[in-house]
């Protein structure tokens, strides 16, 4: 019982820190009230859930954390001014891919999977490589002079539809054929052999 109380306390403290940090930054004048605070909150939730996806022992919880990560990312898309992409994110990633992955987890779960070792032996090197990659990307982003306008441009959905069905109509059709091929291939690969092992 004290252990579960400790878990609840730690979770509450973490939520308090996550909410308190942007508010503190607003008070300090680093963030402006409004979109900045929302962006910061979504970014925190996204990175935190992403870290949980790659570090938790129980893989089904990793799948659920991945849903939280994708949901926060959809919120960031809305803030960035791409509402149709946010809707597609919710439909495709949260609605379809996450459910597919959860079903695959349930089909391949062994009894001793959560108790056995989660990480490869190379995980220390992988961690160092990931940190180096993040630092390199951060330095590159910081030192490059992007030709941006410093303000968000809202993408109107009707304009997006015009572009999608005029300029990008060939890629659109190719993607539809690719999806058909992938669905047929997936069914063929995952179906049971006649008289084979169950």
């Amino acid at each position, binding site marked *: 019982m004290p252990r579960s109380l400790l878990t609840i306390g730690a979770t509450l403290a973490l939520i308090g820190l996550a909410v308190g940090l942007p508010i503190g930054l607003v008070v300090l004048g680093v963030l402006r009230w409004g979109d900045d605070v929302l962006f910061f909150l979504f970014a925190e939730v996204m990175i935190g859930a992403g870290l949980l996806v790659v570090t938790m022992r129980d893989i089904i919880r990793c799948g659920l954390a991945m849903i939280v990560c994708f949901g926060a990312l959809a919120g960031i898309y809305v803030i960035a001014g791409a509402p149709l992409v946010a809707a597609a994110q919710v439909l495709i*990633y949260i609605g379809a891919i996450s459910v597919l992955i959860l079903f695959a987890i349930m089909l391949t779960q062994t009894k001793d999977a959560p108790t056995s070792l989660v990480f490869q032996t190379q995980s220390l090197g992988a961690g160092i*490589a990931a940190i180096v990659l993040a630092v390199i990307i951060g330095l590159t982003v910081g030192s490059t002079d992007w030709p941006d306008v410093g303000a968000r441009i809202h993408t109107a959905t009707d304009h997006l539809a015009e572009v999608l069905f005029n300029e990008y109509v060939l890629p659109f059709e190719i993607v539809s054929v690719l999806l058909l091929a992938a669905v047929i291939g997936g069914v063929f*690969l995952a179906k049971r052999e006649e008289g084979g092992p169950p």
Partner: protein
Amino acid sequence: MSDSLDAYLVLAGLLFAIGTFGFLARRNAISMLMSIELMLNAVNLAIIGFGSFIPSLSADGSVIAIMVMAVAAAEATVGLAIVIAIYRNRKTPLVDEYDAMRR
């Protein structure tokens, strides 16, 4: 912060690095597929960031992001089908036990 392209790109880089770590470090094949999904989402976030801050890319960014999502759905379908097919033969989802071509 939400009005600077750098914030979106740094966020995308962080998510991509997390995905890289997961792909290299996890033993479970489905965990590795989830890490690939994280990396695809990071790239999508960078594309949306460019589309939302560079006027000439405004609609193209969204179109390309939607295309990436469709390709990611195809990838997830085929990848998970392969994992399930391997699991049926080898009875384990752990990639370091798939050593049939090494012995």
